């Protein structure tokens, strides 16, 4: 990074670029049109490296995680705190959900505490949208089942844009367990909005039926799927999915769908590698490649995560004021 933003003029510049979010909530990557997505990436780019600001002073951010996720929760928490918000973390273990309360009852209870921003992670697809209908604050979907994880798509797009200077026209191969991946669904939507060519690559049992109508090319083998790709985005394969129901074994999965240097070699010269984490080394990705700083954007993705979440939170808060 050339410089760390934080001076008064930097902050004023950023403040000027914050725009009211198009919707009260951020539930889906498809909520953004091309102009909004680009403006959000520009703003997030400005937030990279910012350690402190007052954009969310006096706001309350509530992290409501029904599914454990250390990194996403920490990323939202850090984003909120760096912008001066009061941050509260609630996990399913502590909540009354564990005592049998329904999601809507939980929402009504939390709403009475008047948070401004509610970040939700839930194992059921559509849970964030359901919650958003019952609360007065802004809801940010931090992952709902197999459906969407929109801030991940934005941080992936930002990582790509910083590495290549653009997103439009690039070929992005999303590889692995697309079937169960909210990251893949959000990425297909946003990358299409930003003008990238998207491919989905995996065994037929892990590619949803009809995926070719999502705005993506479908490939069942890595050789054709990675040929000429600028970005190879690997998805995590849950270990319990490799015991013979969808994929025969971990070794067969790695042989045909795990990324190693041999398979990566057919990608475009200068191609980059991404992974939303956490990685299963030796299953979907070879350690040697994952740790190679000349091709791997994996660490950038984590860093971009905080900046993107700051930008999203700031824009949602700006709409609340409006």
């Amino acid at each position, binding site marked *: 990074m050339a410089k760390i933003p934080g001076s008064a003029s930097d902050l004023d510049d950023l403040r000027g670029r914050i725009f009211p979010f198009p919707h009260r909530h951020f539930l889906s990557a498809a909520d953004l049109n091309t102009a909004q997505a680009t403006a959000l990436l520009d703003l997030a780019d400005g937030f990279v490296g910012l350690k402190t600001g007052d954009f969310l002073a006096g706001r309350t951010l509530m992290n409501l995680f029904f599914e454990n996720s250390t990194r996403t929760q920490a990323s939202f928490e850090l984003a909120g705190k760096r912008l001066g918000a009061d941050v509260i973390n609630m996990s399913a273990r502590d909540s009354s959900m564990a005592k049998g309360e329904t999601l809507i009852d939980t929402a009504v209870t939390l709403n009475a505490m008047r948070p401004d921003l509610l970040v939700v992670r839930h194992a059921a697809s559509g849970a964030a949208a359901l919650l958003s209908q019952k609360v007065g604050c802004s809801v940010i979907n931090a992952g709902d089942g197999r459906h969407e994880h929109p801030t991940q798509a934005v941080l992936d797009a930002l990582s790509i844009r910083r590495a290549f200077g653009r997103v439009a026209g690039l070929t992005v191969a999303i590889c692995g367990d697309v079937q169960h991946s909210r990251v893949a669904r959000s990425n297909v939507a946003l990358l299409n909005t930003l003008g990238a060519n998207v491919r989905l690559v995996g*065994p*037929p*049992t892990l590619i949803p*039926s009809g995926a070719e109508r999502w705005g993506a090319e479908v490939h*069942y*083998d890595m050789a054709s799927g990675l040929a000429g790709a600028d970005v190879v985005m690997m998805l995590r394969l849950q270990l319990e999915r490799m*015991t*013979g*129901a*969808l*994929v*025969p*074994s971990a*070794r*067969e999965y790695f*042989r*045909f769908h795990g990324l190693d240097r041999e398979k990566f070699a057919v990608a475009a010269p200068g191609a980059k590698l991404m992974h939303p984490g956490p990685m299963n080394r030796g299953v979907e990705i070879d350690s040697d490649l994952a740790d190679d700083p000349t091709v791997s954007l994996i660490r950038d993705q984590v860093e971009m995560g905080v900046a993107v979440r700051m930008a999203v939170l700031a824009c949602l808060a700006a709409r609340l004021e409006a």
Partner: protein
Amino acid sequence: MSARPLALTNARLVDPASGYDGPGALLVRDGLIAEVSQGAAAAPSADIEVIDCQGAMLAPGLIDLRVKTGEPGSETKETLQSAARAAAAGGVTSFVVQPDTDPVVDDPSVADFILRRARDIGQARIYPAGAVTKRLGGEQMAEIGLMREAGCVYFTDVDRPIVDSRVLMRALQYASGFGAWIAHRPADPWLTKGAAATGGEFAARLGLPASPSAAEWIGLERDLALAEITGGRLLVDQVSTGGALQALERAKKRGVAVAATASINHLSFNELDIGDYRTFAKLDPPLRAEADRQALIDGLASGLVDIVVSAHAPAPAEDKRRPFEEAAPGAVGLEILLSALLTLHHQDGLPLLDLLRAVTLAPARLIGLEAGRLTKGAPADLVVCDIGAPLQIDADKLVSRSKNSPFDGRRLQGVVRRTLVGGQTVYSAD
């Protein structure tokens, strides 16, 4: 590899690939077909070894997609070596062994074992089929991709239908990523449970537990629907009933990626051949009504049935000399397949080219072999057969280690004179 080129002259060439059936000769060099001459051939030069076919049929060697041996695990029934000898005697030059061995071929290392053993056996080319599910258990998918790389030519749970529709759906889906065929026995598992014969008047008189022939049709409709929604390649294992053939025809018209085999036994016998509880005629699927057999013959003539298999299933006497209900199903057939097919030609008027296509070109294409055709550059896997010569099957004289054949005592027409694999004679009747 033979040092000298070999000419097979004065033959009636029958080649389903080109559709040629007429006089001609072949030149074989370095194990491959070097030249095909239709009509009268020029006199061969002196440094060429000549085999005069004396007007007999010269056709591609047969490719049998469904053969069981007992190796590994039950070598007393049959070994790869003894099966290869039986194949050579029957004009079969390539065959696919089933994965229901002990251990099951559900792992690339077992496929590799079979291929290494097969390399030392010259009488026939042997290819393994892999299991669809681990231990043929019908639950967990086996390593289809790795086994395919190891050399498995298709995948099957052999006689066991996969009961769980989701398992079969995913297997078809997964295998489609590799372009691999899944062979599956169409059968409703609840209707066929415990059955020893086809339901009907005859089984009722004999008092045998029976399943309705519709059990095959019902099972097949499910399998076809799964193949249709997944785009997977389904090889219907041993279709045997008229109802199932109609379902197959409808699916083929819809463009489903499906092919079907029929066994030589079901083309040659009907349920009455069980007779007085002849356990040699106990098969799986069981023998059907004569109307079903006729429908199968029509299906073969029309191309609805793509491939004919021997369904070679050796069973030693101790497994067959039992009450019908308890006896092991299956029949040996490697040595009989061609003669029985030719008998269909003579008796039922099935065209020779169509019959041979179902045991040469069609199976070769399905598993991707260069063999199965009389084409320049193809392996010189050949059979010379006197198609009109009569013979009577004597099961005790079969080369196969097990002698269980329902053809025992049957009079057939069509005698194999010579079999060549890679230009080498592996069987000669003289």
